């Protein structure tokens, strides 16, 4: 239960909602992360490796990865950004690119919920 990874990772002043590290701006709780290959990349630091291994079998959102790794969301974002930069992880926005209006999204929510009812 390492609260924070060592090294540059998460200086205390960035520990809450830190968006100051370049490359983390696009990340949010629901950013979808998935491994880009099945062979583990070499030379990863332990915390990075834990994240990569977690995502090896399938995709998760940042917040789910954070919960499973017992890391703060902000720290998970840093790790993910590092891995994306290194080319061993991919990230995508919660809403896929083909842009949807707020209205179509909420309509989908409504239709989906009603279907479960």
């Amino acid at each position: 239960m390492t609260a924070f990874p060592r090294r540059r990772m998460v200086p205390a002043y960035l520990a809450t909602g830190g968006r100051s590290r370049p490359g983390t701006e696009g990340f949010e709780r629901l950013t979808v992360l998935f491994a880009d290959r099945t062979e583990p990349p070499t030379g990863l630091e332990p915390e990075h490796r834990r994240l990569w291994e977690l995502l090896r079998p399938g995709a998760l959102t940042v917040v789910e990865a954070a919960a499973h790794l017992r890391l703060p969301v902000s720290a998970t974002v840093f790790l993910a950004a590092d891995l994306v930069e290194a080319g061993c992880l991919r990230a995508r926005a919660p809403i896929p690119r083909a842009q949807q209006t707020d209205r179509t999204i909420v309509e989908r929510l409504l239709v989906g919920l009603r279907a479960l009812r």
Partner: protein
Amino acid sequence: MDSVHSGNPTGPAPDRPHRVGYLPDRDQTLMKLVVAGPFGVGKTTLIRTLSEIATLHTEEAMTETGRPVDDLAGVPEKSTTTVAVDFGRLTLPGNTVLYMFGTPGQRRFFPLWQDIARGALGALVLADTRRLADSFEIMDMVEEQGLPYAVAINCFPESPLHQVEVLRARLDLHPATPLLLCDARDRESSLDALIALAEHVLDTLPAGPAAEPGPAAAQERP
């Protein structure tokens, strides 16, 4: 408890005490609702009732509002508060996944609340008739955030029954804000609360500008 619904769960790894519910697909549309309310009002119960994965939580380190930032230097353990934020996930027909985040209702957690609520479609505010006023703070925060919301009275067995009009007046609700009774332990009742919220959110949005030719449909897979 350990109900992994979909995806391809793997065997437990040393640092994974419970199975991981992976997303079955990479191109789903993910959306977020927040379930807000005072401590003990049933936020986590409602999320657990609806979630397809075992409810998860993150520990969010929080500087309390108004506390000098200097306090933080180097000793986060000493001067930050840690709040557990519960969340759950519900896959909907149509390649859509709904995430539900339980958010703390106290003003001092406002920055955390803002961070979690960012990008949410709406909020379900839970209230308890025995202590309605405990929900006022979060209702203010939701309104400040500009999120559409519905209020659900979580009906505890020992809660006194009130007329909806009385509750509406006591909560000082806008006439358009839905107010409903629910039982957070009951799936259909909890779903109904979210449906009422979603209908209300839709009402707050401008009518579609000549509805774009089905981007939603285009996203869906057979």
